[in-house]
């Protein structure tokens, strides 16, 4: 099961090029959906206007500094999901993110590289596909049943659906059906068509779901770091206790002998008092 390319099995019963055309269509749906989302919400216009404003008010950053900020954004915010304060959410998010990337790449390689049994699939690709799918399912269902804010904090039923759930729900539905379909042998049956429908909802629903956050978030994280570096910091305070000048202030007298890292205070508790 783990070494069989389910797309090659299905491809034998489907018109030639069906799966490849479907995949291309899904990529186009994501691109079109994201662009529509940007135009419809005016988010890009707002984002770049904000960026220009911050650039005009702050000090100019050199090319080296911008590269360094881009590297920090890539490593901390993108690769390690550094913006999450809740570590459980962060782990679930990382599982979902890396699982989805591995799953999608393995799907593309198997669909385009090894479409039929004529070109035998190396065992690594189906295995990676399974690993990616399981990671998405663990992260996705963990998030859905335990971490989602209105389940964890507001005590609502995990089965209560809202528009905000379109992305995570269509993602886990698509991957669950894919796994069920592959486990049942990978033929063209009911499971296959259900998998296709869930996948269309996932990639075709981009304008209405938060699918595109994977493109917006890195840009926002980069802009946030740039505004910190150029001193504007979205008008947020920039003074910290690390600065020896600040340590001399009268108001800092009580913290003179305190360690620089005092640990988390009130945020060590999950917000569930409401």
């Amino acid at each position, binding site marked *: 099961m783990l070494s069989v390319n389910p797309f090659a099995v299905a491809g034998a019963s489907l018109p030639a090029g069906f799966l490849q055309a479907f995949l291309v269509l899904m990529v186009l749906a994501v691109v079109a959906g994201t662009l529509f989302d940007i135009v419809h919400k005016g988010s890009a216009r707002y984002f770049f206007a904000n960026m220009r404003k911050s650039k005009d008010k702050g000090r100019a950053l050199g090319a080296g500094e911008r590269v360094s900020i881009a590297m920090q954004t890539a490593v901390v915010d993108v690769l390690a999901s550094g913006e999450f304060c809740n570590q459980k959410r962060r782990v679930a998010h990382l599982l979902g993110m890396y699982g989805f990337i591995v799953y999608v790449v393995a799907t593309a390689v198997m669909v385009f590289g090894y479409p039929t049994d004529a070109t035998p699939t190396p065992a690594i690709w189906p295995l990676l596909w399974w690993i990616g799918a399981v990671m998405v399912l663990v992260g996705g269902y963990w998030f859905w049943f335990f971490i989602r804010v209105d389940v964890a904090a507001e005590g609502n039923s995990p089965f209560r659906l809202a528009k905000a759930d379109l992305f995570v729900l269509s993602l886990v539905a698509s991957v669950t059906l894919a796994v069920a379909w592959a486990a049942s042998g990978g033929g063209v049956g009911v499971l296959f068509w259900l998998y296709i429908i869930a996948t269309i909802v996932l990639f075709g629903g981009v304008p209405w779901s938060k699918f595109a956050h994977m493109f917006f978030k890195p840009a926002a994280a980069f802009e946030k770091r740039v505004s910190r570096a150029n001193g504007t910091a979205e008008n947020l305070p920039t003074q910290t206790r690390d600065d020896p000048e600040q340590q001399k202030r009268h108001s800092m007298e009580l913290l003179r002998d305190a360690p620089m890292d005092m640990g988390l*205070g009130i945020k060590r508790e999950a917000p569930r008092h409401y």
Partner: protein
Amino acid sequence: MPTFVYMTRCDGCGHCVDICPSDIMHIDPTYRRAYNIEPNMCWECYSCVKACPQHAIDVRGYADFAPLGHSVRVDRDERKGTIAWRIKFRDGTEKNFLSPITTKPWGTAIPKLAEVPAPSEEIRNSQLLYNEPKWIRMDEGGLRTLKDAGLTLKQGVYY
């Protein structure tokens, strides 16, 4: 000047909902982001602004001066034990403040009134509030401060 939430910054963690003394910060059931359900009832205590780990909450200025570029923003850094304010005035003046956090852990600052003796008739008829001289320590001299008591902050945000 009620609070509002930058929806793109908010991640729906619920710290603001938890801390709001008016219980008017709620999580939107559709988008799972925080919002102020009743701006009229917001008294600008800034609790949610300070508690927000993503700096997603701001306080809306009155329409007559809000467009003129003022800003009052705060960063509550629990690891360093500080709270910093950056105040921008309409004329461009900027003021920065940095102070220690003195928040107590949840639940520890609630007086256990059941264990405290009931007020006597004399206290009931007094101008002072219940236990006022004792609890603010004015019956033993001047106002007590950490410095007077020879205390300094210990490790951790609380002391």
